[in-house]
């Protein structure tokens, strides 16, 4: 059972495709580019944002999990079936997830279609539908890649 403390540091990650979704749900893993280590290092929770491809509930934050562990790996180790990928040799942080939980209700976030990795506290995450417009307007450079 996952306890969501309002003061916990959380990060938000996008689930880009079905393969990433399967990795999260079945293998309890999620990978983040190494440049986001500053965010990953002090996050206790990770929430997952589903973009348009997720037809059951697009543009929603649907899942949250605890970060149990992390390790730096080349992309090739994570996706050995794609040796010729342009970023095959780049390093990623592989997160081990614990207590993956479906958010009920899911948090709608219609404005954030390009967000990748983001830092916040759980209290902020819970208020996203109300704060999203104003914060995305003022801190666009921080929120979007």
């Amino acid at each position, binding site marked *: 059972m996952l306890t969501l403390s309002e003061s916990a*540091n959380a990060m938000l990650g996008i689930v880009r495709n079905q393969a990433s979704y399967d990795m999260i749900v079945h293998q309890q893993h999620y990978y983040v580019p*190494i440049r986001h*280590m*500053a965010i*990953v*290092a*002090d*996050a*206790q929770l990770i929430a997952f944002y589903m973009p348009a491809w997720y037809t059951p509930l697009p543009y929603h934050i649907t899942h949250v999990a605890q*970060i*149990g*562990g*992390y*390790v*730096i*790996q*080349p992309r090739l180790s994570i996706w050995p079936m794609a040796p010729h990928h342009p970023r095959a040799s780049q*390093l990623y*942080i592989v997160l*081990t997830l614990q207590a993956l939980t479906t958010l009920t209700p899911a948090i709608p976030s219609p404005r954030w279609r390009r967000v990748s990795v983001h*830092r*916040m*506290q759980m209290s*902020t995450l819970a208020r996203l539908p109300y704060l999203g417009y104003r914060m995305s307007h003022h*801190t666009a450079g*921080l929120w979007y890649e």
Partner: protein
Amino acid sequence: MFRFGCALSLPQRQSDFATHIYARCVAAQRVGLGVVRITGTMPQRIPTHTEALLQSYIQAHRLRIVIHASFAQLPQLIPQFHTYAVLFEQLACRDAVIICHVPQLDDTTATLLDTMPAAIRRHLALEHTHQHPEAFVAFADRVELPPIFDWLHYHLQAPWPYQPAQSACMWAQRWGTRQALIHMSSPSERGAYGAHGARIDAPAVAWLLRTLHMHGIIADIELETAAGIVAYQRLMHELARCAPDLHALINQGGADAHTI
């Protein structure tokens, strides 16, 4: 430029040693710390794919790695010291420090320290704790290892004449070509006698930095406080207000003001 360091309270999680070091380096650099304290567990060899990443990050941001050895008898620590030395060699951290406590200033300890391999002694430094400052520095001179001046322990010993800043300078000069490391903390307002306070006394730091600067000594300052980064940020804020000339001498190149 003076560099600062303090304990980082990152979430506990499973990771390999390379990820552990990299996360701490990034977290430290993000708030403007130049001294990175990593936990003194038995390190593993860094995998090849992360070796270059760590090396380049540490060198690009001029970070100094510091390991506090655990409180144990010296003979038990020697295998750990060996692995630390190998790690520093692998990461090309020439100025990294292994901080060692010497509970007893006796002949046995001196012999043990004297006979340690050069690869370990190159990184070793002795931390002042409960000993009389004069006896401690004489012991450090005897074993030819640099002493780490500890402001709080000096204050608690209260030697006469009471000259902590001047003593810190004299101890720092014993580091020779290595950049000196100094421990700074303030007495706890409520905790047990000798405990580190949550806050760092900014005027005391200003006194120390000004004296070091007057003598032309550049040192790294490690803050020992349970409040960690909060205490460091508050100290920087107070220094910027009361001693802006000294604040300008502090290397905060990596400080990232983005907070939500």
